[in-house]
């Protein structure tokens, strides 16, 4: 789960990490009030849960108070990569001398948190990692002992010549790690961490992702969720225990298991079609879940065919078939359905669907081929 920069900065502030003087605003008027308080010039930054806001024109420096309202208004009216901008952060202009990167992620390969620091701040760290990996200092953190003093100190000394600045850097690293652990983050990032002309370090931007598996012990994390940035159908699916992601194609699909769902999408593409979605109905699927899945998929006008691909294990094929039939009965489904049901209770499912309009398929490959044809054939 992602949170906005201004929310991340609140966590930073509470942890004692230095941030610029700034305040969030949800209307041009509020933005003006903040700018008046801070003094000009200010930077107005779109608060949006997607990267690339700068290139999209979502970050603007404003020198004159009379321009704040219009700039903030323009940004608040924007939609960046499909996401509406609901808030802007109005910040004092920092006298930046140098930009650093400081972040913590969980290193999957080493199964521990890793602190990453770099003098190449301000650009995407993944880009630095690809192009000049030697510019990133990586520090593996032992989960039992946490970030150790010498680790933070050595990272600080590696990046900063001044002893005081190195200490300040180390202190920020310790605080960042504390937030990372206390909030169960999957990623926490200061990019850039800037050094001002007077030598002070400041977290100019902030990125915090929470581990979705920890909502149960962090109600405070969940409160920061911005529902407006989430696809309503994905939220609806999640509530029903389904995992759904909308795509741009015409072949809707209902699959049990995330891996099989991805493989089904890939095969659709391979056979010349385009998947309309990712949908994993999960394990023990009730007919009810199946109905919801169908409703969500069919609410997408692009969908020209629905492909059901089930390898029954815990999932019982007859549950799926029943769900399909109920969905068909309750709604006026006009798009064709292709179903491949194998594994647990596949026989019963086949019997149930025998006299329906559902097109049966024996294998995954056959099912995908038929679905692509029904969607309009190979492009």
């Amino acid at each position, binding site marked *: 789960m992602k949170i906005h920069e201004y929310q991340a900065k609140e966590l930073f502030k509470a942890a004692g990490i230095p941030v610029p003087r700034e305040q969030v605003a949800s209307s041009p008027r509020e933005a003006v009030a903040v700018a008046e308080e801070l003094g000009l010039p200010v930077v107005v930054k779109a608060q949006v849960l*997607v990267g690339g806001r700068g290139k999209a024109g979502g970050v603007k420096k404003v020198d004159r108070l009379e321009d704040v309202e219009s700039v903030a208004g323009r940004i608040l009216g924007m939609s960046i990569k499909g996401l509406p901008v609901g808030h802007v952060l109005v910040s004092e202009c920092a006298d930046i001398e140098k930009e650093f990167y400081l972040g913590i992620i*969980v290193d*999957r*390969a080493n*199964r*521990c*948190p890793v602190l990453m620091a770099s003098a190449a701040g301000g650009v*995407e*760290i*993944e*880009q630095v*990692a*690809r192009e000049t990996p030697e510019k990133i200092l990586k520090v593996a953190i*032992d*989960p*039992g002992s946490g970030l150790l003093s010498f680790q933070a100190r050595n990272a600080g000394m590696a990046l900063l010549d001044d002893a005081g600045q190195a200490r300040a850097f180390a202190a920020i690293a310790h605080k960042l790690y504390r937030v990372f*652990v206390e909030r*169960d983050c*999957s990623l926490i990032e200061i990019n850039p961490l800037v050094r001002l002309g007077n030598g002070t370090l400041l977290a100019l931007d902030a990125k915090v992702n929470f*581990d*979705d*598996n*920890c909502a*149960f*012990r962090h109600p405070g994390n969940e409160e920061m969720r911005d529902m407006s940035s989430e696809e309503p159908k994905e939220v609806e699916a999640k509530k029903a225990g389904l*995992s759904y*992601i909308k*795509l741009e194609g015409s072949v809707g699909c209902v*699959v*049990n*298991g*995330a*891996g*099989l*769902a*991805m*493989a089904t*999408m*890939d*095969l*659709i*593409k*391979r056979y010349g079609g385009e*998947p309309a979605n*990712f949908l*994993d109905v999960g394990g023990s699927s009730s007919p009810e879940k199946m109905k919801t899945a169908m409703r969500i998929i069919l609410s997408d006008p692009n969908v020209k065919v629905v492909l059901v691909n089930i*390898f*029954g*294990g*815990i*999932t019982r094929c007859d549950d799926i078939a029943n769900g399909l039939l109920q969905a068909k009965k309750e709604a006026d489904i006009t798009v064709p359905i292709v179903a491949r049901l*194998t*594994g*647990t209770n596949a026989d019963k499912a086949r019997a149930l669907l025998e006299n329906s309009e559902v097109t049966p398929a024996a*294998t*995954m*490959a056959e099912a995908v081929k038929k679905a692509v044809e029904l969607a309009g054939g190979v492009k």
Partner: protein
Amino acid sequence: MSILIDGQTKLIVQGITGRDGGFHARAMREYGTQVVGGVTPGKGGADADGIPVFDSVEEAVRETGADASIVFVPARFATDAMFEAVAAGLRLVVCVAEGVPTLDMVKVLDYAKGRNTRILGPNCPGLISPGKAKVGIMPGASFKQGCVGVVSRSGTLTYEIASHTAEFGQSTVVGIGGDPVIGTDFIDCLRMFNDDPETRAIVMVGEIGGTDEERAAEFVKASVKKPVFGFVAGQTAPPGKRMGHAGAIISGGSGTAEEKIKALEAAGIGVVYEPQEIADKLKAKL
């Protein structure tokens, strides 16, 4: 032979009095697994369909001589169950639960490191050595004893792919799980399959996210002497979106299926683009 489990494995089921635990305890026993006990704190002394229930793993191990466990408790309690299983000295602990906090998993694995326990999962279907034992939730009927070792990050996709290896059957099929931090990875399984005389070929089923497949490919190139085939799911997955599995996400442009396939090919692994292709590929090599 086979890897990790066989007919000698003595299994306890943690959370046996729960719905899933009870159901799968019976299913595993029916498959032929020696399910020697169950654990549910506070329900020690009970009997779950003929399987004795204990209050603690320690007690269950002492009384039954179990050497493996499978954890069927909800995600938020799964960490503690794994800690308990590791502390009790079990050789293998399989965690099925989806939704275990990542940093908890980091701690459990660190705890297990100095001890002699292998953790499989979390968020995995478990494993099966067809004809011998099943420690997991997969449908036994989808597998057949044989010589192909299968290791996969997925559940049902594994069943799909394994079904196309039926001509040769499987030595062991291992689901390593779809979370970002897992106890047993491709390399661990590849090493074991390479050393297992019964296994003649290996199929690895990967997906987007992380670099596990890339590292596995390097390992195959350096150390695996048997034919290895690979499949990677998620070529059409959009970046930045978590595709069901917590670990299946392309972030910052890395972890794509394209990169992984390239790495597998560079390592001489026979890449399969459609599940059913595996049948012919195997035939050509075995």
